[in-house]
C-alpha cells in the first residue's frame, strides 16, 4: 500500500451474536493515518460493536481487520497496540491515578524511571498533575475523563478508540472536552476512531464521519459533504439540528419549468437542478429542506431561487441567536429557524421563503436521494 498510509482497514466485517442477532453487516472501511473518524448513529446501530471488534474485545464473525497493514483478527487486545476510552471511564478503583496511568506501561515492562517520565508528561498535557495521588472515586466526572485520556495517551498507541467518552458529562464540560480532544488529536497526530450518537459531536470533531443504521453503513464522508449531500433520507434526517423537513410532494412540469407540488404549496425547482430531476416528472417524492434554509419573508429580501410558502405557526421557540418556528402547511409539519427579529406569533399564518438551491428530493419507496 504505497502512497498514503492506511491505519485501519475493515473488510467485509460482520458480527453475529450468539443469539443470532446480526449487529454489524458487512462493513468496509479504510481509515487513513492521522484521521479523526467518527462513527455515528442512533442507539443500537452497532457502533460500539464495530469499535470493540477493532479493539479485539468482541470476536469477529466474518471479515478482516488490519491495523497498520497487519491482520489482527486473531491478536489479543494487548497485542494490537491500541488504546481505548470507555463511556464510564473504567478507571481501576483500587489504584491511585498515577498507577492507573502507569498500568499499561508497567504491563509492558517499561523501566520505572521511564514510566515516571511518561506519566508526568501525559498528566501535564491533560492538567491532572495535582490529582496523581488521588483515587478515582475522589475525582469529579470531568477529572475522571481526563485520567482516562491520560491512560490512553501515555502509551503512545497506533490508534485511539473512543466509545462515547463525553456522554456522562454535563453540557458545558462536554463542549470543553470536545475542544480538548480535538486539540489532543492535532498535537499527537494519532488516528482516532470515535463513537458517538450525538450528531453535533460528529459534525464538529470528525475529519470524516461514518453514519450507521441497523448495523449497515449509510454514508461515509467529510462532515459538510454528508450535511450538504446526504445519500438517503436517514442521513439527511440524522445530521443537523433541528432536523431536515420532509414533505410529501409530486414533481410536475408546467410550461418548461419543474415544480415540487402539493395541495398546499407549489415550489419552482431551480433551473440549475432541472436536469438532475427531469426524470422525476409526475413522480411522488419526498421533498427535503433544512430549517436554516427557510426564512421569514418579511425580514428577507427576495433572492434567486427563493420560493414562497404559507404556513400556520404553531409554536415559537426563541433560542437566542435564532427563533425556531414550528408551523403547519396542510398535513405537513415544517420547522424553520429564522432571524430572531421575527414577529411570528402562534396561530397566525405567515409567509416563508425557501432557498430552493438547497433542496433535496428522495425516493418515496427506497428513501434514497435523487
Amino acid at each position, binding site marked *: 500500500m504505497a502512497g498514503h498510509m492506511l491505519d485501519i482497514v475493515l473488510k467485509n466485517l460482520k458480527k453475529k451474536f450468539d443469539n443470532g442477532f446480526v449487529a454489524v453487516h458487512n462493513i468496509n472501511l479504510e481509515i487513513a493515518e492521522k484521521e479523526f473518524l467518527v462513527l455515528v448513529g442512533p442507539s443500537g446501530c452497532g457502533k460500539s460493536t464495530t469499535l470493540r471488534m477493532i479493539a479485539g474485545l468482541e470476536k469477529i464473525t466474518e471479515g478482516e481487520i488490519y491495523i497498520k497493514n497487519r491482520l489482527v483478527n486473531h491478536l489479543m487486545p*494487548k497485542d494490537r497496540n491500541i488504546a481505548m476510552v*470507555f463511556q464510564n471511564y*473504567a478507571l*481501576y478503583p483500587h489504584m491511585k491515578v498515577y498507577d492507573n496511568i502507569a498500568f*499499561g506501561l508497567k504491563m509492558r515492562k517499561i523501566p520505572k524511571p521511564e514510566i515516571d517520565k511518561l506519566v508526568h508528561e501525559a498528566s501535564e498535557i491533560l492538567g491532572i498533575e495535582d490529582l496523581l495521588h488521588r483515587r478515582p472515586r475522589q475525582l469529579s466526572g470531568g477529572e475522571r475523563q481526563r485520567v482516562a485520556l491520560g491512560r490512553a495517551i501515555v502509551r503512545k498507541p497506533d490508534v485511539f478508540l473512543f466509545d462515547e467518552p463525553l456522554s456522562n458529562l454535563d453540557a458545558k464540560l462536554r463542549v470543553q472536552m470536545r475542544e480538548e480532544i480535538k486539540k489532543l488529536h492535532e498535537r499527537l497526530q494519532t488516528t482516532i476512531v470515535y463513537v458517538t450518537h450525538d450528531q453535533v459531536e460528529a459534525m464538529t470533531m470528525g475529519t470524516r464521519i461514518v453514519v450507521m443504521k441497523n448495523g449497515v453503513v449509510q454514508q461515509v464522508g467529510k462532515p459538510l459533504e454528508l450535511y450538504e449531500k446526504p445519500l438517503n433520507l436517514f442521513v439527511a434526517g440524522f445530521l443537523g439540528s433541528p432536523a431536515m423537513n420532509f414533505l410529501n410532494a409530486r414533481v410536475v412540469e408546467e410550461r418548461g419549468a419543474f415544480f415540487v407540488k402539493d395541495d398546499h404549496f407549489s415550489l419552482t425547482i431551480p433551473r440549475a437542478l432541472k436536469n438532475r430531476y427531469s426524470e422525476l416528472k409526475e413522480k411522488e417524492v419526498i421533498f427535503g429542506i433544512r430549517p436554516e434554509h427557510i426564512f421569514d419573508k418579511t425580514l428577507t429580501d427576495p433572492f434567486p431561487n427563493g420560493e414562497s410558502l404559507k404556513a400556520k405557526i404553531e409554536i415559537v421557540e426563541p433560542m437566542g441567536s435564532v427563533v425556531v418556528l414550528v408551523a403547519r402547511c396542510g398535513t405537513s409539519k415544517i420547522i424553520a429557524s429564522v432571524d430572531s427579529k421575527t414577529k411570528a406569533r402562534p396561530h397566525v399564518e405567515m409567509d416563508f421563503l425557501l432557498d430552493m438551491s438547497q433542496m433535496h428530493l428522495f425516493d418515496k419507496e427506497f428513501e434514497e436521494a435523487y
Partner: protein
Amino acid sequence: MDRFLTEKVKKAFLVIATVALFVFILFPPAVLFLTSIKTELDALSFPPKWFFQPTLKNYAAILKTSPLIGYAVNSLIVASLNTIACVVIGSMAAYSLARYKFKGSENIAFWMLSIRMMPPVAAIIPIYILMKNVGLLDTPWCLVITYLTFNLPFVVWMMKGFFEEIPRELEESAFIDGCSPLNAFIRIALPLVAPGLAATAILVFIFSWNEFLFALILTGTKAVTLPVGIIGFMKETGINWGYMTAGGILALVPVILFTMLVQKHLVKGLTLGALK
C-alpha cells in the same frame, strides 16, 4: 414535636429489639462460659447457680491432662488448608463462571449449588469407604478434601456474585492496557473482590473449624479435631461438664479473635456492591 416523639419511640423500640436478640443469641455461650468456670458441684446443682466462686481448675486440668493442644493443631491444619484450597480453586471457578458464559455454564453453577442441598449424612458412608480405600482415613487430608465438597460450592456462589458486580469494562480496559486474561484476573478482578473474598474465607474457616459429623466418622486417633476431642470428655462413667465447657470455650477463642481481627472486611465484604 410529635415527629420527634415518634422518632424516639422508634429508636427505643429498635434498641430493645436489638438487646433482646443479643440476649437470645448470647445466652447459650454465656451458660457455656459460666459452666466452664464452676466447680463440678456448682455445675451440677439445680436450679443453676448464678452466684458462685469462679475457678480456672477445669482449664488447667484439660490443658494438662488431655491432648487438647494436639486436637487444636489438627483443627488448625484442616481449617487453614481447606480455606486456602477453597479460596484458590473457588475464586478461579467463580471467575470463569461469572465471565465466560458457555453452553451449560448456568447449569454447572446450579449443579454446584445443588451439592449443598444434599444432607451431609447421605454422603458419609461412600466418603468413608472412598477414604479408606485410598488410605486417607484418620489423616487431616481426608477432612480437607471432604470439607471441599461443602465449602467449594459456597465459595463459588459467593464469589460469582462478587465478580459479576465488577463492571466488565475494567477488565476490558486491562486487556487493552496489556493484560492477558489471567493477568486481568489477578491484578484487577481479584483485588476488587478482596473484601468479599476475605469474608467468604472467614466463613469457610469457621465451618471447617466447627465441623463435627465428618470429623467424628473419618478420624480416630491421630487426626482428631477439636469438636471431636471435646466430645471425648463424655465418658461411659459420666459427662464431665466442666471439662467439656472449658474445651468449648477454648475452641471458640480463636474463631472470635480471628473474626474480630477481620470484622472490618467481613462487613465490607458481605455488603460489597451495596456500598460501591
